[in-house]
């Protein structure tokens, strides 16, 4: 009997997560690329290429799969346990879970105002709807890595893990989770994520063609569908051209790394929040770093309800920033 084809979108526990293998030839190419960039850095605007044709991910299948994984738990009235979902940056995991929650009438928790989190006065407490299943849409948006800035999240963990908060589904960015594991080091069960997309899965969702190209895309994106979509070259099938990654600025300092890391851990920050998180870096230096990183297409900003825009690491910049932080010994996510 023929084996059923593997599904592209699969929800797995974090321990079952597998990153696509990185072929040696790709590792060597990457070293060579880094070395040549070292010798002759490209000018800053070389990277502004035609890659604005980002592939928009369709999450319907992922949502359907989510239904098959969580529906029993959701409908079991006696089960008051929690479900945690870890979302690597740009992976679409948070969006899929939110849409699934909406479809199943799960009420979404109100996030605290991050601008007031660090005030010495007591912060507002997490409010749970104990009679109903609740969704925490993004735990990374409930804290600022600063003294006083972790109180809301600590209280959330205390109430949620004690069972006091009732039945809930929590979404957390993978970088924030790596940090929060140190803040509240209690191992949690039922920690889910989206399985890494290998070359076959990428082909199924139509992000690229050709074995070598698919493997290269899977390795570059580390199985993250959002990153793969950002580098998708479906219009250039079987292309042998190397992926054009944004480059780091020619001069990188501690402040550069701190800004990148803070943006990842907090899943985006406004300028004023960044200044609160990094008081050791002067306000002018922060602005300089933001502008330099933006010029390199490593970060971008999106408008928010408040007047301050939210800075975040771009999908195309993410592999570069991740490697940069890894080379500097930062605490990384597991994906």
């Amino acid at each position, binding site marked *: 009997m023929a084996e059923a084809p593997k599904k592209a979108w699969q929800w797995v526990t974090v321990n079952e997560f597998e990153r696509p293998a990185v072929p040696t030839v790709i590792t060597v190419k990457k070293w060579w690329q880094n070395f040549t960039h*070292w010798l002759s850095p490209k000018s800053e605007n070389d990277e502004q290429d035609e890659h604005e044709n980002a592939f928009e991910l369709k999450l319907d299948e992922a949502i359907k799969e989510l239904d098959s994984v969580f529906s029993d738990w959701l409908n079991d009235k006696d089960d008051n346990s929690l479900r945690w979902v870890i979302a690597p940056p740009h992976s679409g995991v948070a969006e899929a879970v939110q849409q699934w929650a909406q479809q199943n009438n799960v009420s979404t928790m109100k996030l605290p105002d991050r601008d007031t989190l660090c005030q*010495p006065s007591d912060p507002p407490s997490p409010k749970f709807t104990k009679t109903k299943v609740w969704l925490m849409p993004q735990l990374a948006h409930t804290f600022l*890595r*600063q*003294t*006083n*800035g*972790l109180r809301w999240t600590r209280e959330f963990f205390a109430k949620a893990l004690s069972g006091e908060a009732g039945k809930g589904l929590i979404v957390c960015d993978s970088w924030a989770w*790596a*940090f929060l594991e*140190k*803040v509240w080091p209690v191992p949690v069960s039922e920690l889910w994520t989206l399985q890494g997309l290998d070359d076959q899965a990428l082909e199924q969702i139509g992000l690229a063609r050709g074995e070598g190209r698919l493997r290269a895309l899977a390795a570059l994106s580390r199985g993250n569908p959002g990153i793969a979509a950002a580098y998708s070259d479906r219009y250039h099938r079987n292309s042998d051209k190397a992926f054009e990654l944004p480059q780091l600025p020619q001069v990188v300092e*501690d402040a550069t790394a*701190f800004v990148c*890391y*803070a943006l990842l851990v907090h899943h985006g920050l406004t300028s004023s929040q960044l200044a609160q*998180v*990094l*008081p*050791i870096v002067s306000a002018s230096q922060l602005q300089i770093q933001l502008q330099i990183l933006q010029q390199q297409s490593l970060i971008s900003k999106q408008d928010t309800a408040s007047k301050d825009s939210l800075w975040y690491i771009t999908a195309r910049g993410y592999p570069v920033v991740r490697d940069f932080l890894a*080379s*500097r*010994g*930062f*605490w990384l996510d597991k994906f």
Partner: protein
Amino acid sequence: METESVKNVAGIFKSLDTFAILEIVIIIAVAVGLVWLTQKLIPWVASHLHGKQRLYTLALVPMLRILILVLALVMIVPLVIEPTLQNMVAVLGAAGLAIGFALKDYVSSLIAGIVAIHEMPYRPGDWIEVDGSYGEVVHIGMRTVELVTNDDTVIWVPHLKLWDNLIHNANNGGPSLMCIAEFYTQPEADAYQIRDALEEVALTSPYLQLGKPIAVTAAEQPWGTKYRLKAYPIDPRQQFQFVTDMTARGKRRLLELNVKFAKVESGEALEI
């Protein structure tokens, strides 16, 4: 008799023709060139790396140099001396006499330098303290180790110090280096509240190595209580900024908690 001993000594050495001299010059030139190249190239490569990779790359410099010089010596000696046991004893005896009288300290430093490469009490990239001088090892030479202090002062310490001085190595070849920020408060302050606040200060520092533990200790002093906040930075080179960050934010946090800092009058301070 005298003529005979002169003849014997002369017999130890080979007669050097132009080709042999040229060969020796080329060996020396190549060895010096290679040593120079490793001393320039490897630190340059290391300056683009961080953490473990940087430290391991830097550690190659003295090892490669000693390897190159030993190889050069092995190639030159047979060109100059007939390498029999008798000849070697004679040459080493003469060399020992010269060293014993004139170059004792110099040679002792050279030998200590070789021991330092073998035992590795310090490697390039380590933060060490010798005779009260604290700095980063930037170069291990044949005779001296070069330190750069936080004030950008270069200190050359002869390897000779290795024999009879205590060498304090803060990171011992790895990227983990404990930093301590100290706080002095009046004795009435709540020690557990201060401990919790200081741990939070370290945890939220951008310099913190998250994989390492944070600890706060307290000790009573005549003027109040002394707190020591201990944590590890991501890179040993960030130690001073890390301590500055913890100190600045720790003071701010303790002031928010209305903790009063200990102050000592100038006269008392002198006594203490």
